[in-house]
């Protein structure tokens, strides 16, 4: 059976301004022939002829010798075979410039290797194993949100999660320690208090600080601040009780400025209007410090989570460009100078209170908790039992046993004895949130399992696997029902449930969790473009960029698009701020929408600011980092890191006589060094093709006043100079992307790293998906139906 996939990049997708040629790329996806042993021997011959010049016992390039390697016996050392498959599929070996066999010999070679390995694995693949997962920061936040409708920042309590193979949920590196236990306890106490409210809460103060990269320019408003304001601080604060609170403001910059009005609002309603420097008696120094504090009178606020915003009243309307001091827009340069007027920025907001608390009003989280309200002493305990039973079933993600409820009721009794019904409920919630059934996803092992034995994951545990994979939280009632009937272990039922759950809005967590970590969107914030060169860049813009990529990925899932849209999409998601950054007209307002790219300068993910910025340095683009990102994150073939002692690009002369060199010219000089060339010949052309995007992802055609030259030779020999041509070159050979995506999806779904032994399954899922035109659901369902997802293998005695 020969399978080929024709991918037609419809001309409609390549809109204005680009040669509208439909491209038909034909790619063999599955081994078309079954090589006989003679052809395997012939392939061994190819390896010996073309690979062993470098991969010899003597030269050991890449710490690999293939002198004794034979394709027939590839299964005896799958680790080596898989390395070869990866490099061959990517088209990276033999390297550019080296002798290559004619025709499709290399394709036959890699197919033969895959066949040998997959045949050997047939019927004896292990589903693998891992210890139980614990709730990490991101999951904790979601679980608290699901249980109580409360937005919390888990980093307040929990230690940093460790990333392994790109993900934060890999079980075997999730440490367990007294520090962690202590953090879970503190979190539980705080969350229980925030959810129930605390009428006797002691007055406390909480200070929130603005990120200095937040722009407070005339045209920027913060979330929740009224129209007609600029900049400011906006926070979601949980008020423990109805009572009086005081808001105190801290500033930066603002030297020589006065007469700024500051609007303080709770959920959009003004509660105070303050004047910055109302009288000359108030002295403000160049750091924005006032002679005495600026605070509101006490303000009555009801219990619960409210958005507090403090923002300046906008004084200028219409276009506003201050080209003399553009770096005043944000404080990312953290510089200010004496003697120059500068705009004040709000940096700190302190909430102090409650004073004179009067009780706890109804809040969304209280309505979720208190499904009944006792009106007499007699009703209290039955009501408590009802509440606890409902919450705990959700928190423990399984059917409760009597002992579960009894234990929590003991805590209710303890609290109620000290402070009545509500304290009882709060104490029970506190205990529930540190129960190992809440914090850990422990999967029961059936009795009598022998070491090394393969067994199915129990239905109820499978339900949690599925819901944490697709939703990032525990299962809903329906999924638990299916599990309770032991139907979930039926792969067809499992698939049906998975498809149902993909329809649910909660599956957005595949974009905000999975894609976020896979595409390394957390690195975006770590790059702060130099405010002198890039005054338009702000935290607001980087947040939009992250959102763009998440929405794009979410769209692929929701519309069940092809994975290859990642590279060939002629559309993206922008709001006004991002659209104007990209030079796309006609987008007004803060809301994101899907828009077609106006021309072919941007295409798919490679035109996203989130990718282009995270791979830049503060003051220049880095084609090396961009090339590395594409190879590592998209293709799964990371280049080896540079050997120590290699000069970086900064060491290369930045000018030749009077001529300022462009990044590409400096890189060419860098590549002239033969130790660097072997890898940079692969990396640099990829990044160079993206060099028309500056540090902030904006389109440019010149650098340092010199026209940019982005031309390079992709390692398969194609000439590329633009993002679009790079995308074409990558699409020419989709297997690396497709398999790497599958592998990442599995890592995230299983909570363990994908090993050599898993590669036959990865290939199988990717192969199936190719039959469905790489539809997203095909990958997701493929992972869910895999043995690795549904089964486990008990560890060998030896590994205990």
């Amino acid at each position, binding site marked *: 059976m020969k399978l080929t996939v024709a991918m037609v990049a419809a001309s409609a997708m390549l809109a204005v301004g680009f040669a509208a040629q439909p491209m038909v790329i034909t790619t063999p996806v599955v081994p078309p022939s079954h090589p006989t042993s003679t052809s395997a021997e012939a392939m061994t011959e190819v390896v010996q002829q073309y690979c062993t010049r470098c991969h010899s016992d003597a030269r050991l390039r890449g710490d690999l010798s293939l002198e004794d390697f034979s394709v027939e016996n590839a299964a005896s050392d799958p680790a080596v075979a898989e390395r070869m498959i990866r490099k061959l599929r990517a088209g990276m070996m033999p390297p550019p410039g080296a002798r290559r066999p004619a025709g499709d010999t290399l394709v036959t070679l890699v197919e033969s290797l895959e066949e040998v390995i997959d045949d050997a694995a047939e019927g004896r693949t292990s589903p693998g194993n891992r210890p139980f997962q614990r709730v990490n920061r991101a999951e904790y936040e979601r679980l608290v949100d699901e249980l109580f409708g409360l937005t919390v920042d888990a980093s307040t309590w929990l230690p940093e999660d*460790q*990333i392994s193979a790109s993900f934060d949920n890999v079980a075997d590196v999730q440490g367990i320690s*007294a520090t962690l236990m202590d953090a879970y306890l503190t979190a539980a106490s705080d969350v229980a208090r925030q959810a129930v409210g605390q009428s006797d809460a002691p007055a*406390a103060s909480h200070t929130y600080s603005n990120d200095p990269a937040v722009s407070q320019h005339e045209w920027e408003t913060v979330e929740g601040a009224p129209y007609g304001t600029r900049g400011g601080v906006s926070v979601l604060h949980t008020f423990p009780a109805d009572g009086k609170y005081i808001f105190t403001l801290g500033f930066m*910059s603002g030297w020589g400025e006065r007469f700024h009005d500051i609007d303080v609002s709770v959920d959009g309603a003004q509660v105070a209007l303050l004047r910055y420097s109302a009288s000359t008696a108030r002295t403000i120094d160049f750091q924005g410090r006032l002679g005495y504090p600026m605070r509101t009178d006490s303000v009555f606020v009801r219990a619960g989570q409210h958005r507090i915003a403090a923002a300046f009243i906008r004084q200028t309307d219409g276009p506003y460009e201050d080209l003399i001091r553009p770096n005043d827009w944000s404080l990312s340069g953290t*510089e200010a100078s004496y003697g120059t007027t500068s705009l004040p920025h709000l940096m700190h907001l302190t909430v102090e209170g409650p004073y004179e608390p009067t009780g706890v009003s109804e809040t969304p989280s209280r309505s979720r908790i208190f499904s009944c309200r006792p009106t007499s002493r007699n009703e209290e305990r039955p009501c408590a039992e009802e509440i606890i039973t409902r919450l705990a079933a959700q928190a423990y993600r399984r059917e409760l046993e009597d002992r579960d409820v009894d234990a929590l009721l003991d805590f209710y009794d303890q609290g109620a004895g000290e402070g009545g019904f509500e304290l009882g409920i709060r104490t029970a919630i506190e205990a529930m949130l540190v129960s190992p059934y809440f914090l850990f996803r422990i999967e029961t092992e059936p009795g009598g399992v022998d070491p090394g034995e393969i067994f199915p994951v129990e239905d109820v545990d499978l339900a949690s696997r599925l819901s944490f994979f697709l939703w990032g939280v525990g299962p809903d009632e329906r999924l638990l029902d299916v599990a309770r009937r032991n139907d979930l272990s039926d792969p067809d039922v499992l698939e049906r449930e998975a498809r149902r759950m993909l329809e649910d809005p909660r599956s957005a967590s595949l974009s905000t969790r999975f894609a976020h970590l896979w595409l390394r969107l957390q690195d975006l914030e770590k790059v702060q473009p130099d405010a002198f060169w890039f005054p338009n860049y702000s935290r607001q813009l980087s947040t939009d960029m992250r959102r763009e990529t998440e929405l794009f990925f979410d769209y692929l899932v929701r519309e069940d698009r092809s994975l290859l849209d990642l590279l060939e999409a002629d559309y993206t998601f922008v709001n006004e701020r991002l659209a104007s950054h990209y030079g796309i007209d006609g987008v007004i307002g803060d809301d994101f929408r899907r828009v077609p790219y106006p021309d072919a300068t941007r295409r798919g993910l490679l035109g996203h600011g989130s990718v282009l910025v995270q791979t830049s340095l503060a003051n220049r683009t880095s084609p090396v980092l961009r090339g590395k990102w594409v190879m590592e994150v998209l293709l799964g073939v990371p280049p080896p890191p540079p050997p120590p002692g290699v000069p970086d690009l900064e060491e290369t002369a930045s000018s030749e006589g009077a001529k300022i060199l462009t990044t590409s010219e400096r890189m060419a000089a860098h590549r002239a060094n033969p130790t660097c060339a072997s890898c940079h010949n692969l990396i640099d052309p990829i990044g160079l093709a993206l060099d028309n995007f500056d540090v902030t992802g904006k389109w440019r055609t010149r650098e340092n006043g010199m026209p940019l030259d982005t031309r390079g030779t992709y390692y398969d020999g194609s000439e590329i100079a633009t993002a679009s041509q790079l995308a074409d070159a990558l699409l020419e050979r989709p297997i690396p992307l497709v398999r790497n995506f599958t592998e990442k999806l599995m890592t995230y779904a299983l909570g363990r790293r994908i090993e050599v032994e898993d590669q036959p399954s990865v290939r199988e899922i990717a192969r199936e998906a190719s039959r469905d035109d790489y539809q997203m659901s095909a990958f997701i369902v493929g992972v869910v139906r895999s043995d690795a997802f549904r089964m486990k293998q008990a560890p060998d005695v030896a590994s205990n």
Partner: protein
Amino acid sequence: MHFITGKHIERRAFLKGMGATIGLPMLDAMTPAGRGRLTSSDAPKRLVCIEEVHGVAGCNDWAASQHLFAPETVGRDFELLPGNVLTSLEPYRDHLTIVSNTDVRMAEAFAPPEIGGDHFRSSAVFLTQSHPRQTQGSDLMAGTSLDQLHAQRFGADTVLPSLQLCIEPTDKGGGCDYNYSCSYTDSISWADPTTPLPMIRSPRAAFDLLFGAGGTEEERAFRRRTHSSILDWVAQEVAHLRREVGALDRQRIDRYLDSVREIERRIERVEARNNSGEPRTLPGAPPGVPDSFSEHMQLMFDLQVLAFETDITRVTAFKTGRDASNRAFPESGSDRGFHPASHHGGREENILEFNKICQFRVSQLAYFIERLKSTEDAEGSLLDNTVVLWGSPMGDANLHNHRRCPLILLGGDNGVLEGGSHYNAPDGTPMANVFLTLLHRLGHDDVHSFGDSTGEFLLG
């Protein structure tokens, strides 16, 4: 490049101003905390271990000739020339012991796949002086760290046997390279060769760990009571659960149970302390992670001073950077990223540029020493009964080498170190020798070797 070179905003100074006026919780503005229990000189010595990640500029060959780290003269008459990375410590030279020319060879590559992985392996070596097993999985293997040896012996009767702090986030996209688990990159404290301890980055979380969350003493006491009974129940639940799980999970469950027991003991120790000594008011908790490096460092130092002052712990480990971080430190006078700057290519101008960053980072120590020195203990100052160790498992970060690494010790009149001296080790001396001697001086007489130590190091 910066257009205006006027003045960097000193956010710290700014916040101090705020603290004074609006009650922004800053620790240094506050009264001593908790129930004080000052320690006398016969109490076990406190140990602070601070790691720098990229070595220092002065460990490059040319820079060594300029004495950017090791002073030219050994002994008491050493001179810290203007470019020396330690100049900010000149006011404390009587407390300062410089040890130059020791090696951290356990951080070197032992096998071809390890070559180049220095940044991901070094931190695990610093305080263990042991070579980490190359793995991404849970089969970690390094060594027991210096701070933990001290804590396990002398920390048992404090509330927290030891405290782990760090500055940089650890969520870098992708994870760690060269087939090394991020545990090796992110922790310098190892309770045993297979157990790295998490380092806390948020000053707020560290404060809560030290003193308990809750804001008031009444609320803290209430929470302790609740936690006590919850922990009791959790321990039963865990025992129940243990029966239902496989072998792989059982190990983790046991570790969890140990953690539960440890917290129970902690609560008991707090209660015991509170039944003795004078009650005092605790300061408010500090906010989360500040943007500014120096502000963050100072808060972490404040917390350690506070923890010593209240004798809640005697041992801390402090990781001040993350290997290969590109963070820039504009306050240093250089706008280069930390890691790119460390790859100075051996060029003099670039070494001097990197040196600015190193000087700035080391200068944070002066604040800590001053705080320790100016805070009273039962006899003398906190510094007297404390040994501060600062060093790096890398020497010349440009080459990723681990020879001639920087190491200094600071302390008061504590009978451990004489201070005011520069020791230049004979070539090839393991840093572990210094640690071994230090252990002996700190009361671990029965420890005969540490990491790759070959013997004692003669310290004054």
